[in-house]
Each structure stands twice: as C-alpha cells, then as structure tokens.
C-alpha cells in the first residue's frame, strides 16, 4: 500500500509540475557556479537565460519606443562594483501580428555579460550578487505584462598574486 501511495504522490507531483510548465511565458536563468574574481580587477561574469519555447521577449534595444526593453538591474554588495552590462544583439524578426515591422527580440537562449569589479577594500571570500531581469514577453498572438525574474550569482573574491600591480582605476589608489 505504501508503494501505491508513493506512486500516487509522484504522479500527482509530476502532473503539477507539467501543468505549471504549460502556463504562461517564462524566462529562466541557468544556474551559475561561483565565479572566481581577483580583488581590484574587473572581471566578466556571463549570465545565461532561456526564453520558453514559443515566446519571445524584446531585446535591450527594441525597434519601437513603445516596447519595453529587457533590462538587468543588479544590487551590488559592499565592496563590489557592477560595471558595464553587455546585452546581446537581438534578432530582427517579423511576426504575423506585425507583418510590416521587424521587431528586435530575444528567443531561445541568450547571455548577458556583467562586469564585476571587486574593490581593493573587498575582503577575500564569497559574495552574493542579486538583481532582477525585467522583460516583457509575447507569443505569436498575445503579449504578457512585464515581469521580473530574480537573478542571483556568486563571486569568489581572491587576492591577486603577490607582486601584481594595483589597478590604477581603483578609487583607493592615489598616485
């Protein structure tokens, strides 16, 4: 009887997961391992996202001022500066609902590169960086209100090798 109960629970759980996945549009972020970064040196971190099949989201530079761009906003912890955020170029696509326009969109997988700059004051160790990816999705017949995806990654700040020159861009270096 225990096996039957387990089987029923398993199937019910699978059904719930499957139904949840059949819902509206979604963008998910791939799990990112802890990125090692050197103190005082800007380092790129790549964040990978996936747009659910059948949907697209506006790129960071949509072709119309009315469209809502995809934007990543990060809250840097103390002693970590977030530098340039590089968005990929979108693809210019024509959809049935806008046959005369090309919309610049992301679909499938795309990556956003973030420059992480641990300051010289950063204590070596692990730091959490959190933020949100704001996007607005559509399928071929409808558009969905803007949504925010929670973004999280970790960096491991390490000391630079002994004898390495300090980064002159640091606000803590006064020459």
């Amino acid at each position, binding site marked *: *009887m225990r*096996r*039957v109960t387990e*089987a*029923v629970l398993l*199937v*019910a759980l*699978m*059904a719930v*997961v*499957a*139904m949840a*996945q*059949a819902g*509206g549009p979604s963008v*998910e972020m*791939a*799990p*990112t*391992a*802890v*990125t*090692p*970064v*050197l103190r005082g*040196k800007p*380092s*790129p*971190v*790549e964040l*990978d996202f*996936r747009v659910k099949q059948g949907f697209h989201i506006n790129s960071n530079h949509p072709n119309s001022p*009315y*469209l*809502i761009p995809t934007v990543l906003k990060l809250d840097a912890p103390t002693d970590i500066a977030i530098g340039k955020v590089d968005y990929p170029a979108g693809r210019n696509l024509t*959809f049935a*609902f*806008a046959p005369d*326009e090309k*919309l610049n969109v992301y679909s499938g*997988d795309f*990556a956003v590169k973030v420059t992480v700059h641990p300051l010289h004051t950063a204590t070596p160790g692990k730091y959490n960086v959190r933020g949100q990816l704001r996007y*607005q999705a*559509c*399928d071929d*017949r*409808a*558009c*969905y*209100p*803007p949504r925010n995806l929670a973004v999280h990654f970790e960096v491991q700040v390490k000391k630079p090798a002994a004898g390495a020159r300090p980064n002159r861009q640091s606000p803590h270096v006064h020459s």
Partner: protein
Amino acid sequence: MPDSMHNEVKQFEEPVRPAGQNQAPQQTETSPAAYSPHARRNAAVIIVVVVAVAAMLIGGQYLAHRGERSGTITAGGPKPGAAAPDFTLQSLDGKTVRLTDFRGKAVLLNFWATWCEPCKLEMPWFVELQKQYGPQGLEVLGVAMDDSGKEAVAKFAKDMGVNYPVLLGKESVGDEYGGLEYLPTSFYIDRDGKVVARVFGLRSRSDIEDWIKEALSRGSRVAGKESSQQPGVGKFETSN
C-alpha cells in the same frame, strides 16, 4: 584574468516531461508474491492513476487549445451570459465613463497596451468596424492597461487613428475582468450588458466582426441609442 577562471555556461535542466512519458516500467517485483492479488491490485491502482492524470493533462491541453481557437474561455473574467462588471474610468479627454452609460448598445471592450504589438494590428480594424457598425449601435471602448502615462497613451492612440473612446485602465478593473494575463483581451457585450464572448489574444478581423454582429443581435434596444434598425436583430434575446 585567465579564461580558466571564468565560469562556463551552465546547463539548463531538462524540463520534466508530462506524466506518463517518463514512467519506466516497474519491474522490481519478480517473486511469486508479485503476482498475488494484493500486488495486482496495487499495480492496477498505479496504472489507473497514471492513465487518469495523463488523460487530464491531455484533455486540459486540448480544451485550452480548443477554447482559444473558438474564442471562448481560457482565462478568467466574466463568462458569456454573465453581466459585464461595471466600471468608472477616465477617458483621454477627461470624461468620466461608466460601462452602464452604454446600456442599449453593443460594446466591444478592448483591453490593450502601448507595448502590445498584436493590439496594434487590431486597432485599424476597430476603427473601421466602429464606422461600419456604429450606426447600428456598436460602441468600441479601448482600455489602455499601461503604466506609461496619459500622454504616451494619447500619442499612441492618435498615431493609430483611433476614433473611439480610449479609457485609462486601472488594475482593479483588470481584476474584475479576469486579471488580464495577456493582451489583447476583448469582451463583446450585448445591449443588456451581458457578455457574449470573451476573447484572449489576437483574432482575425472576420472573427471580430462575427462577435460584433452577435453582440448587436442580442439584448434589448434602447430608443435613441442607434440611428438605424436592422430587421431580425435586437429581439430582446439574451445570452445563454
């Protein structure tokens, strides 16, 4: 920093497949006890549950798809036959507009937003259909569910040549109409204020015209609400 210090792209986890597709055959019981009535009953229960859940999933998907194609129900909001929730909203020209102001007319209540590209495709159709069916008692009402402000909505509507009232939407009104999970969403409301059809997403112009005709044909006319009469329509019918 050397490349080796960078993290590589991580693998996305494979989606869980619907129930029934990744169920490995249960072959664990090989002793004679596996064939006991008790074991057979357990196996039967498992099979029944798996088949039932699979049928529910497949059926649900089918019904959702069918509902979308027929322009009926896939999301919340008042169902056909139910009274359309009344609201009070401001129009772009500063007037206070209530849905009940249009009792006696058929109303195409269209929720849209400036960021909604499919909504743009419908707007010229609505302009034409308002011209065509306005004399028979149609009123198109656009409700902008936008955060971009009145000026942006007004500019957009002007650029699109909108000739019907555009109202500035509120979340509370959206909630009354099912939460508006996606746009465009339109409700076709008859002359008595009852919902004839609710439509989620972009549809063809001919479908829209059919729903307009249906809305015009139902409910009771109110004198002075339209300038022409058509034989055979508006015979105090009510939605079912």
